[in-house]
């Protein structure tokens, strides 16, 4: 099966000229290629999105690593650190987020497993993607509730270092979740227009699972008394 078709998840052929040319692009190959022309952007399998998503994940990891080290140094140096008890709802949110990862996995399975593109399209209109989208929004809503609860307790951004870090970390993470939701919306649009590529779906899924894990890490970071 040609890489392009394999990469495309619907029967509608891509508006791409099929220049099948698949030579090893790895380091240090010295054999001289035979094909008359090089490959164009669209001919790639997988396309750069799969590399890009790792780059994005790496950058986000660095950012949160910096935030973490800041939290540790700040906590060590500070005289005014008061531990705050996390709002219960955070744990519910965690479950929601984990659930969303599961639904996304199911969606991806449904979209990629079945034999031919025809079955895929017939059998599936991406309900599970919508489910994931909904759960994601639910999580953000849940975070909002958590912030409101803290405000009600009189814990604001500047109240004490711990609350500062809580707000900064959770808001930063929520923003990344929203980014992921945009990605999902984009995937759904592609699916409905019948031009969704496996690699795109993979990238979106990879990112979503990453921010999911990121949240679990943050929760533990905020939960433990260092």
């Amino acid at each position, binding site marked *: 099966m040609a890489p392009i078709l394999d990469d495309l998840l619907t029967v509608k052929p891509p*508006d*791409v000229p099929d220049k099948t*040319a698949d*030579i090893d*692009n*790895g*380091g*240090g*190959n*010295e054999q*001289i*290629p035979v*094909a*008359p*022309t*090089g*490959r*164009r*952007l*669209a001919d*790639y399998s997988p*396309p*750069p*999105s799969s*590399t*890009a*998503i790792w*780059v*994005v994940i*790496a*950058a*986000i990891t*660095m*950012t949160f*690593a*910096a*935030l973490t*080290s*800041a939290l540790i*140094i*700040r906590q060590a*140096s*500070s*005289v*005014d*650190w008061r531990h705050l008890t996390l709002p219960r709802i955070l744990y519910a949110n965690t479950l929601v987020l984990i659930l969303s990862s599961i639904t996304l996995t199911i969606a991806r399975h449904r979209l990629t497993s079945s034999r031919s593109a025809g079955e895929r399209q017939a059998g599936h209109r991406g309900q599970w993607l919508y489910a994931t989208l909904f759960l994601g929004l639910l999580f953000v809503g849940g975070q909002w509730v958590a912030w409101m609860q803290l405000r009600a307790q009189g814990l604001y*951004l*500047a109240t004490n*270092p711990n609350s*500062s870090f809580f707000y*900064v970390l959770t808001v*930063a993470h929520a923003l990344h979740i929203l980014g992921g939701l945009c*990605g999902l919306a*984009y995937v759904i649009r*592609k699916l409905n227009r019948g*031009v969704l*590529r496996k690699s*795109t779906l993979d*990238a979106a899924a990879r*990112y979503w699972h990453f921010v999911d894990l990121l949240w679990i890490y943050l929760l533990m970071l905020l939960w433990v008394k260092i």
Partner: protein
Amino acid sequence: MATPHAVHHHAPPSGFLRKYVFSLDHKVIGKQYYDLALLAVIIGMILSWLMRLHLGWTNFAIPGLHFLTKSGAPGNIMTPEFYLQLMTMHGTIMVFFVLTTAPFAAFGNYFLPIQVGAEDMPFPHFNMMSFWVTCVGFLVLISSFVFSDGPTLAGWTQYAPLSAVGAVAGPGQGLGEVLWASSIGLFCIGQLLGSLNFISTTLDLRTKGMSLMRLPYTVWAWFITSCMGLGAFAVLMPACIFLILDHVAGTSFFVPSNLVINDQLQPHAGGSTLLWQHLFWFFGHPEVYIAIIPAMGITSHILSNNIRRPLLSYKVILGSMVTLALLSYMVYGHHMFVSGMNPVSSLAFSFPTLIITIPATIMVLIWIGSLYGSKIRINSASLFALGFISMFVSGGVSGFFLAQPSIDIMLHATYFVVGHFHLVMAVAAIFGIFAGTYFWFPKMFGRMMNETLGKIHFWLTFVGAYCIFMPFHYIGIAGNVRRYQAFVDDYLQPLIPVHRFITVAALLTGAAQLIFLYNFFHSRFWGKPAPANPWECTSLEWSTPSSPPPFDNFGPNLPVVYHDAYQYGVQSSTGDYLMQASPEQLPAAKQ
């Protein structure tokens, strides 16, 4: 997430906006970055002239100075705060918007996709955002001249708590400070988006036969720089957010308890001032290499073209660049030897700092050694490339001193440091930029620059740079503290004549840059048309159907690569070089 679909039927852009302003074409974006850097460097240079004038002749009224500031120049005499504001802006503009954008973002955007044989970057929309976010960041920074009581005066390193306590700490520490932090935050976002494109272009969009070991040095340099950028800018951004929060939200990330400023006890409590220094320098030291590694790549590329032979070892140069990049994250503590850090960790940081001189030395030896028995071709580009080596050596040796905490006791925060980083980071990188400009100008604008003017420009700049920055080392050893707006200490009085000499040298060298500007803009529009491959260079940017290349770089068919990037000193049908894209096979490929 953008996808390859965004560009895969790469139609020529139509409409003025898409063509020239919000263009998705990496070449246009590259030019935009270059012009931004040019504007920035002109502003930064003018600021440095004002500072030098003030240092040489304090209380000298500079005509028209009061137009730049509300209260910073009563009667055109520069006030201490205005001097520091100029200094901060000079540093910030030069480090971020010149040394990072020109060699990395500008040349990288333009030539990385062409040199790997791609028709564009994979995510053109991100690429466009990358430039415009950076541009907005620049405007935000400049705008601080207009608002409130001017830009921040805390220096480009923005040490907390001076940068974090707010307006009470001095002029510009209120709004000006917030603008600075926002601007740099935006800049980080812009560069992260850029790195995203650079990395995936290098890994995924190489054309047929363009194996990793066939990439030009420049591509490697930009790729390594992007990877460093990921780490560095992703760490600086949260630091800037903390800084902004300390200002606008009343948090205390960087402000400790019990600070008393102007007899007022500050409300903040519990923050850590060293936290800022750690976050900043974790970005700050890699940033130095983000500025210099692209220049190294450009120099290596232009050097091997102009000595008509490959450098002694491709792999060694790559290895050294990678080693520099990795080590640069382990040495940042040498900026904090006397800053109250644990003296043991000072030593721990000093050893990698000393070791980092080894890969640097190796590169220099390879460059110089490659000259042996070669055929050096003298032109503006090669002069600046050779000048880069000289500057890099001169600036590098002073690293031996600053790497040692014991000597740093004498030299920390003196003009010795200023001389060191200006030579090794600023001047060397600028030489790389000049070399790249003279070398790639024909490709970027389809016209040749004036060689004679180029050479005159080189001579004045080369000699001038030494006249400016070598004396910095001497007065630094004599204990001349940096960031002083006037030298009121008794032991600094005898050094003022040296400062006057430096000022004159700086003004003349600055004036010499006008030659370059004239040459650049005149040739851009009226220069004589460039031949297809004026430098007889092998890499792919010289295999494009036209100069400047068409919107999709190579027309309908992307090139196929048959050779590594540096087939010089060979006997081929074309002469002493063999294009990467030419199928011709040599009986015994000389290496």
